[in-house]
């Protein structure tokens, strides 16, 4: 048995029956990270000693007869999520050396659930990007083809799961940053409903859109990981006081009699033929399992990209105002007065993509342009939200491609940010509407993974998990591993 190949739901009974230990599992993953991560660069830092101590603790708890939902399971955490005492950089030079003094609620809940934290994964700086190339610490490589990007911004987490460098991981998704890298890396990524998971301790990018969620080897693991972190948190006033169902319970109920909406606006001319073919094949599978597919229209889908790239940078420009070189992070050593200190600290601390978005957002919010850009985008957001309300009133969930193309080459979009932004066209609208979505592997094109996305109603993660699980059980794509 190769321990790194286990899923979480396979490892849990083995741990429970004493057939393996968390220490052995953690050591196997640390050895694999040491062997493979120099090529992939999924991790920004591996906390081996802490992980082994947590694994020993988990094994002792088991020996005492304790049980916890993820007891002894080694996971990876995106570096925008605060871990007490462990450097957390958000992929930015401005936070180099920053050691949070508290854990994010998600991390607290994972620790309470018994998880072992292997380390922090690479991300586009402040989660701004679709390729993980915009990390100040160098890009992550796609395990399926090391010359290609893993997607982003949670590219480190997706690559770590795909390369079996952890059993599961957490990322954050503001416009597709969990689902798009999951699609590019051939793994499962779930963006929960806005408010479903606490964001306390998440380094903020765009607060009306950000959400933390799991990246996993399969749908069952995604359900287990979501279960461990979901639910109201008084520390996050935007977290929802909604009941959390048992996500594993209805997983195998099937899709017979379900109505799956297929929005015609997602099948655009620009998408790669191989992607279209795989997604249409997935629709055939759902139909063969007894689901009905119905064409729906979401007429404002094409406007999501400009809306997102005005609203998210506007919110980011406000959120990133806190990086002032005074309370934490990099401080320029030679500034003469406070204004000089702000300007120089931020000029040296932030990378190009972050500056570009701060500039764009500041412009959209500035006097004379607020109505034309920011307010206009907020109004079109209302129209996009209405598209969702109407489409999801007619069907149980929506099925779309996750991305228009497979993973692109590192450097391919370096000169043209707008081209990179276009890779997000199928994932952005969901964040604008606040609902939930999951990407799962549905085939390959030229040897690279293709993802299909299931989008659901607010707080209805149970349905998208069930739809995804039905497909997964009928196919074998989730069992494909990159040739490493």
């Amino acid at each position: 048995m190769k321990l790194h190949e286990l899923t979480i739901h396979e490892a849990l009974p083995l741990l429970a029956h004493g057939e393996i230990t968390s220490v052995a599992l953690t050591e196997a993953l640390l050895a694999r990270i040491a062997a493979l991560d120099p090529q992939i660069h999924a991790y920004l830092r591996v906390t081996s000693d802490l992980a082994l101590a947590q694994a020993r603790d988990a094994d002792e708890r088991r020996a005492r007869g304790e049980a916890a939902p993820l007891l002894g399971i080694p996971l990876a955490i995106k570096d925008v999520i605060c871990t007490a005492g462990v450097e957390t950089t958000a992929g930015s030079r401005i936070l180099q050396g920053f050691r949070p003094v508290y854990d994010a609620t998600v991390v607290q809940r994972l620790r309470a659930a018994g998880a072992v934290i292997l380390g922090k994964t690479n991300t586009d700086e402040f989660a701004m990007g679709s390729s993980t190339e915009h990390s100040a610490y160098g890009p992550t490589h796609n395990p399926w083809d090391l010359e290609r990007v893993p997607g982003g911004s949670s590219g480190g987490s997706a690559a770590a799961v795909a390369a079996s460098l952890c059993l599961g991981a957490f990322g954050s998704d503001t416009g597709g940053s969990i689902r798009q890298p999951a699609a590019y890396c051939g793994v499962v990524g779930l963006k929960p409903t806005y408010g479903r998971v606490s964001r306390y301790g998440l380094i903020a990018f765009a607060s009306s859109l950000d959400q933390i969620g799991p990246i996993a080897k399969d749908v069952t693991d995604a359900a287990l990981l979501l279960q461990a972190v979901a639910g109201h948190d008084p520390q996050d006033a935007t977290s929802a006081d909604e009941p959390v169902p048992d996500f594993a319970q209805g997983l195998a109920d099937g899709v017979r009699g379900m109505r799956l909406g297929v929005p015609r606006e997602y099948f655009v001319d620009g998408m790669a033929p191989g992607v279209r073919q795989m997604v249409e094949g997935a629709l055939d599978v759902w139909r063969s399992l007894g689901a009905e597919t119905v064409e729906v229209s979401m007429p404002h889908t094409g406007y999501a990209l400009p809306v997102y790239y005005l609203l998210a940078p506007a919110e980011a420009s406000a959120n990133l105002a806190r990086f002032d070189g005074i309370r934490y992070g990099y401080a320029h050593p030679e500034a003469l007065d406070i204004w000089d200190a702000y300007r120089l600290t931020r000029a040296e601390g932030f990378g190009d993509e972050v500056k570009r978005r701060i500039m764009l957002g500041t412009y959209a919010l500035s006097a004379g342009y607020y109505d034309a850009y920011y307010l206009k985008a907020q109004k079109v957001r209302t129209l996009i939200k209405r598209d969702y309300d109407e489409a999801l009133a007619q069907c149980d969930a929506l099925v779309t491609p996750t991305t228009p193309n497979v993973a692109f080459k590192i450097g391919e979009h370096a000169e043209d940010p707008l081209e990179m932004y276009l890779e997000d066209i199928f994932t952005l609208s969901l964040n604008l509407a606040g609902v939930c979505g999951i990407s799962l592997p549905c085939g390959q094109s030229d040897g690279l993974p293709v993802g299909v996305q299931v989008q659901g109603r607010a707080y209805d993660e149970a349905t998208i998990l069930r739809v995804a699980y039905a497909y997964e059980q009928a196919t074998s794509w989730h069992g494909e591993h990159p040739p490493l």
Partner: protein
Amino acid sequence: MLNRDTVLHIAELAKLTLSDRETALFAEQLSEILAYAERLNELDTDSIAPTAQAIYRRNVLRADEPRPSLTPDQALANAPRREGDLFRVQQILD
């Protein structure tokens, strides 16, 4: 097309010093992105209310009770410059 002066004005609002390279690059790239955003004007939104948050929540209140917060040492743990229990900053007034 954004001109150099506009880019520098925005950079000052955002408290960023830009190099000449960045100023020229952002003038071009932001212009391209904003031109793309012009397509929103195809939509008549005069009667549409703006959405700031897709899943609206009214005021979230809690009891106003004292509870532990960060200690001074915790709050200052990551400060680039510290003086006693204070953050040290550069001169603010002339």
